[in-house]
């Protein structure tokens, strides 16, 4: 289950990263539709948090503090990038979105390692 969600997060992040990269190349700032894309990622992350909580409650052995540190960190990255998109109306907001998607994807990998799924 976690692995399926992780693949979904990775695919969505890759798509959003590609979109952001395209905007960087075209010298454009982040648009609202990209933020909706980020919201979809956030939705999947929230679902993942729910699933993690349920599985942990059912007795999955994991370092809880470490795991939830990553879960919370992962959740705040894209909203911060979104805030940037409003403040900086240049291509650099697209660069920031690109970095943010990479960060979320990387945190997802660490999350899997902590969970013991890979």
């Amino acid at each position, binding site marked *: 289950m976690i692995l399926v969600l992780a693949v979904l997060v990775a695919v969505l992040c890759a798509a959003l990263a590609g979109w952001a990269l395209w*905007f960087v190349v075209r*010298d*454009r*700032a*982040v*648009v*609202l539709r990209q933020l909706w894309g980020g919201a979809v990622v956030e939705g999947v992350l929230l679902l993942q948090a729910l699933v993690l909580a349920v599985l942990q409650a059912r007795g999955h052995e994991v370092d809880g*503090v*470490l795991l939830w*540190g990553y879960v919370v*960190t992962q959740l*705040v*990255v894209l909203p*911060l*990038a979104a805030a*940037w998109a*409003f*403040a*900086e*109306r*240049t*291509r*650099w*907001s697209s*660069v*920031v979105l690109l*970095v*943010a998607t990479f*960060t979320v994807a990387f945190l997802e990998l660490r999350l899997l390692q902590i969970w013991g799924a890979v």
Partner: protein
Amino acid sequence: MTDATSAPGQDPATPGTGNRTGTGAGRLLVAVYGVLALAATARGLYQVGTKLDEAPLAYVLSLVAGLVYVVATVALARDARRTAWVTVGFELVGVLTVGTLSLVDVGDFPDETVWSRFGSGYGYVPLVLPFLGLWWLRRTGRDAPGADAGTDGPDDEPAPTVG
């Protein structure tokens, strides 16, 4: 704000010659600093909170490093130049010192702090970032570095809040 209709490259916050540290390409710097601040502080809190007795010095340092990254992030974002100089400089010294110590294996620096082995656990970002930060501060500086004591930006703070 539904579309990117504003002209790229134009920034209303940069009148005159000087640039603010937190705009344009500086956003990227602030963003990467922010990610590192988040990562280092979270990790430091975790280490100090759960296993401080294993390696007190390294873990407290880990947390301090994280908090300094937070201050540096805010300073860069708000164009508080003096604070930014101090905190970014602190990181440079920190990563070089701890990086070297962890390589020659002096003291208890397990590979669990941001600065251990020059930040290899973080893709060497902690090593590269201070250089980029100092370069950016220099580049955007209205005055020569070091001579900016009284003529800083509007948001500059009176004194570094480190330590």
